[in-house]
């Protein structure tokens, strides 16, 4: 069963296309599935049905296109980063400006799509998990827009390091519930959101923030985020008359990366690179690099690469960036990793901090620390490439939320 992006209903997937997954049981090769409690099975089956109906409904596509344009502010520009390109002295660097979306990141693309699905299903209450708070802010935003009750679960550690976003969610009328279980980060928030959902099956919609979770979430979130790659393709052809040589994106759960990669999966000459958070270093034991340092397992509804110990207990992830601080990754990435279509690399906290400052000073853009991981890799590879080559980087979010963290690391007291 093919699943072309709702924003591009005319695109056709070939039978042997890399874009045709998942299968009708939600599997990308050996990854994905629906590993949920029986209480949740009727809900995800109902969601799948509602999503299929929405996909096939031209009025849904039209409505989504309207909100993308006039509320989210799409299309987002593709910016030629001239100074950065000159400084690095190699490939031409383009930035896909997802940080210019309303609420400051790519997260609203997905949230906008899902909230319209939730409304079609008649749900009146929304729960979501958040790490950096970007997904929580996006969710709180659309709940305000449509007058829906909104509860956001956020790890207590993240509440501490992302205070501005917590206050933003409150201003938008959402209730933020800090989660103290575990290390108080994204995985604990995800557990708690699932507990809430299981206890409120009648009226509540679980608005997952990345391309993970039980089927159909990985597929649905990818479809909504694919607007990023679809626009990028048109924009780079308009600017350069050809496709880029490489596309680089940061990986938390993997939604901004999947969104920009997916429309290019069959363009095999375009190198796709995902930057995982290596934290203090891939071999430091303090990383969030699920593909580089994990192995397949089952958590939060899907089979995918996970950071875990020898007994199958899930490890705590570590990253300076709250949005990447997750021990798993979306199942489609696990599959793309195993078939070798996408290359996944590790970027440390320090490399991301350095890239944050380079972007700020050279392009006048404060990038989110998440996006700075992708930029750090661009900084590594651009000088090794020819001046006639092209890199597109997904600038998934803006960095205003991170200034406190950055200040602390450069020894400035705010």
């Amino acid at each position, binding site marked *: 069963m093919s699943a072309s992006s709702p924003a591009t209903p005319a695109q056709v997937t070939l039978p042997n296309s890399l874009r045709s997954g998942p299968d009708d*049981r939600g599997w990308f090769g050996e990854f994905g*599935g*629906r*590993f*949920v*409690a*029986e*209480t949740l*099975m*009727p809900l995800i089956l109902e969601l799948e049905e509602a999503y299929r109906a929405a996909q096939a409904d031209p009025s849904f596509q039209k409505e989504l296109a309207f909100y993308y344009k006039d509320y989210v502010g799409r299309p987002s520009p593709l910016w030629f980063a001239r100074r950065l390109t000159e400084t690095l002295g190699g490939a031409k660097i383009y930035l896909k400006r997802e940080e210019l979306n309303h609420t400051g990141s790519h997260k609203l693309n997905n949230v906008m799509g899902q909230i319209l699905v939730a409304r079609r299903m008649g749900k009146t209450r929304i729960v979501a998990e958040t790490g950096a708070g970007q997904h929580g802010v996006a969710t709180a935003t659309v709940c305000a827009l449509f007058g829906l009750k909104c509860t956001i679960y956020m790890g207590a550690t993240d509440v501490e390091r992302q205070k501005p976003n917590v206050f933003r969610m409150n201003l938008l009328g959402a209730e933020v519930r800090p989660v103290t*279980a*575990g290390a108080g980060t994204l*995985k604990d928030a*995800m*557990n708690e959101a*699932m*507990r809430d959902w*299981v*206890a*409120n*099956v009648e009226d509540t919609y679980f608005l997952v923030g990345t391309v993970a979770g039980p089927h159909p979430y990985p597929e649905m979130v990818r479809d909504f985020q694919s607007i990023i790659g679809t626009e990028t393709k048109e924009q780079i052809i308009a600017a350069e008359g050809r496709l880029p040589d490489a596309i680089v994106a940061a990986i938390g759960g993997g939604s901004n990366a999947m969104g920009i990669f997916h429309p290019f999966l069959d363009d095999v000459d375009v190198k796709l690179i995902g930057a995982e958070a290596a934290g203090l270093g891939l071999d430091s034991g303090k990383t969030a690099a699920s593909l580089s340092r994990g192995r397949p*397992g*089952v*958590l*939060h*509804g899907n*089979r995918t690469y*996970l950071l*875990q110990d*020898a*007994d*199958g*207990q*899930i490890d705590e992830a570590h990253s300076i960036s709250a949005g990447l601080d997750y021990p798993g990754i979306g199942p489609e990435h696990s599959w793309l990793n195993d078939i070798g279509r996408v290359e996944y690399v590790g970027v440390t906290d320090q490399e991301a901090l350095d890239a944050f400052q380079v972007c700020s000073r050279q392009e006048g853009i404060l990038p989110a620390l998440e996006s700075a991981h992708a930029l750090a890799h661009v900084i590594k590879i651009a000088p090794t490439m020819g001046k006639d080559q092209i890199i597109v980087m997904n600038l998934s979010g803006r960095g205003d939320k991170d200034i406190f963290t950055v200040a602390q690391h450069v020894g400035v007291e705010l």
Partner: protein
Amino acid sequence: MSRIQARFEALKAEGRGALIPYLQAYDPDLETSLALLKAMPGAGADIIEVGIPFSDPSADGPTIQLAAQRGLKAGSTLAGVLEMIKRFRQGGQETPIVLMGYLNPIHTYGAEAFCRDATQAGVDGIILVDMPTEEAVWLRPHAEAYGLDIIALVAPNTSHDRLVHVLREARGFVYYVSITGITGTASASEAQLKDAVPKVKAVTSVPVAIGFGISTPEQARVASQIGDAAVVASTLIRTLASTLVDGRATESTVPAVIRQIEALAQAVRSVEGVS
């Protein structure tokens, strides 16, 4: 005949349902939980459910979450849990043991290795909260080959069609999750159980155990009569937790939980209120 089947047949002859108390392995340490496990049959446990500690128990409330954390801190591993069951079996062959937990540790251990080692240790069934029927294929052939019952879970929002689908291959007993929610929070009313449980029984011949939210002897009695068994978990863990000092077991830990099980067992054995 499996130990689980034999136990339910014997209880049927006695004219009563089963009491299934729960404990989390290694909570708060291996020796205490093993002592508790060994004392449970004498206190009136008909079947025992042993929780496998997991780092991310997303279907459990705070009580069992904390128990799992204590278990992990005490060094629990799946291999360790199987070893604990083996030691229990050295002293008791009759009481069926059903493990309950989440899929990832089993997945890590390996499907066939787990079914082999678990049955060798004397485990009779496995309940995996995050493994719906649709995702059971990787485990089922091995479970069948080694005679380990995969216990199916159903819930109040499971439709008739889904009940038929889920219970087609039911073995051992069916676990009816009596509320839509997590462990140790809300309880179903007697009227709700009387409405829902017959619908489950109508599509399967295996016994139906009712769990989630059963904490008083009276609730256990009612559930064991409307269904075929009552599972009691969080309240026992709360009792256990209340006896700990700095997270460690005390003299009163095992006796306190055992006294509570005795009271539950007495209620399940009383015929009072049978209509």
